């Protein structure tokens, strides 16, 4: 492990910034390039990076499998829920105009939650795929 000292310290410094950058991309999606998909990928990449340096078990302790699976479903549900909220407030499905008194503010609010849903699901799916592939190789090595 001592050989990885540099990597471990660099990772510890970088990971908070990666997570921060994910949030920046997420919220900047309103005004320029960015949005939920990219933010979700960057957020998941931070965890993948953590797993590469500190090992898969450590990453699994930090973000356990059930949490990842809940994220996958929760994001989609949030997206669909925003759509249904539009229906409940008297508009059509995915109607953001009715989400606030001012239609433009309503659009803003709608896309905010939809993008949040996208980010949650995308990072969940990224991690799920990573866990499955990484875990598979581990299991094979242990079997040998």
């Amino acid at each position, binding site marked *: 492990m001592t050989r990885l000292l540099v990597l471990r310290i660099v990772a510890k410094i970088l990971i908070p910034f990666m997570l921060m950058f994910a949030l920046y991309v997420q919220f900047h999606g309103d005004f320029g390039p960015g949005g939920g998909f990219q933010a979700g990928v960057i957020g998941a990449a931070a965890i993948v990076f953590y797993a590469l340096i500190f090992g898969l078990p450590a990453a699994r302790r930090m973000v356990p499998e059930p949490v990842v699976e809940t994220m996958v479903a929760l994001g989609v549900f949030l997206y669909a829920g925003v759509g249904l909220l539009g*229906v409940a407030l008297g508009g059509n499905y995915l109607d953001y105009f009715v989400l606030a008194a001012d239609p433009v503010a309503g659009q803003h609010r709608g896309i905010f939650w939809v993008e949040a849903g996208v980010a949650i699901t995308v990072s969940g799916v990224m991690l799920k795929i990573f866990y499955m592939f990484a875990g598979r190789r581990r299991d094979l090595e242990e079997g040998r």
Partner: protein
Amino acid sequence: MIAGQLPALVVVVPLAAAPLVVLVRRPVAAFAIATAACAFSFFAALLLAAEVAGAGPISYALGSWPPPWGIEYRVDAFNAFVLVLVSGAATVVAPYGWRAVAAEVRRDQLYLYHATFCLCVAGLLGMAITGDAFNLFVFMEIASLASYILIALGRDRRALLAAYQYLILGTIGATFYVIGVGLLYLVTGTLNIADMAARLPAVPDLRPVLAALAFVTVGVSLKLALFPLHFWLPNAYAYAPSAVSAFLSATATKVSVYVLLRFYFGVFGLPLVVETLPMPQILLALSIVAIVSASLVALWQTDLKRLFAYSSVAQIGYITLGIGMASREGLTAAVVHLFNHGVTKGALFLLVGGVALRAGGAGFASLRGLARAMPLTALGITLAGLSLIGVPGTAGFVSKWYLVIGAIEAGRWWLAALVVATSLIAVGYVWRFVEAAYLAEPGPATPARGEASPVMLAPAWLLVAACLWFGFDTSFTVTSARRAAALLLGGAP
């Protein structure tokens, strides 16, 4: 308020049910949510069909962005009929899955089956209801990805290979479709199907339109398993869990047929498809080869599931034969058969699933003397088999009747004779089952006496009853199909 939202809710409820199922995880709750969502969609589809029959097409602007800018959900006489078929099949298959899938899928993966099933239902319903060519692609991908997973859940390890094969071919199909839509977007500047149809005649350069037609035809034909693009189908249906085979055979290829019809008659239009290009002749030739060759191959199968899978390829041939006639009677026959074959094949796969579960497989060895071991199942397969042949008094007869009338009206007596003659091959493969089940002595592989669980038998027999019901009372099916045919022929620019 809710009535006006039905076009969205019919798709959104199963779509939202899928993540909910994953969140609750418990098999019982997952099953309850999935079944309730399918039942809701069926109810909504019936209401929509009734409304469309009375008041004409419904247009629903998603997100309140008016079409053609926003995504439009458009329900008319044709896709309301398809919606009823898909959601009805889902509602019948969902309770069947309670016992059948529990026996075939690992317990900790059961909730994933239910979630994927909901996604598949939502995707197919979305494909049928949307009035936007690109949105259709998105739903096609949702339905296809879900069906790859569902097929791969089969107990047999060959299910994985079958799912992979379908994944490769299905992806090529979807890609071709989206290339076709891209070309159409390039020349018309719109993705709304109705808007596209209105702008297409004004397009000066025909070449990209012809390329789009070719791409859409090949892409969708892969999805609907038109000969010679059917290679994925027999393995996929044979190795998938029974509930999945039943649901996919009743709906997936049928929705693709709907997409083909929608594009041929609702976008490209009759003059282009029939006069500029020899599409009817191509479809006729391919359909005839599909019917004859797949029926003959079915005759030699040693496994009942594979036999019915090959018979599906042949029956899809009858549907495309009706499209190839490009006449009112031909299209009526195609749309009626789309429904009737869905019901018939659904019943057959559900019943065969019961046999496979009791006997550990559906090979002909385990079918010997089945009438004594599982009398209700054997009778059900025989009755649905009669509908597959097209014996008078069954749903299959109604479709073949209109096909024959369509052929005679077009002055093609040989085609009418061919439809009747190929039905004889169907007699052959259904007889093989009857012979094994009723005339042979039980062998060592025959399951012990006892029917499949009532939870599985009841949905299957419901569909068998539907085969017989729609053979006598054609008011729903034929009236809907006639309306759809009129819409397709009249709606073309």
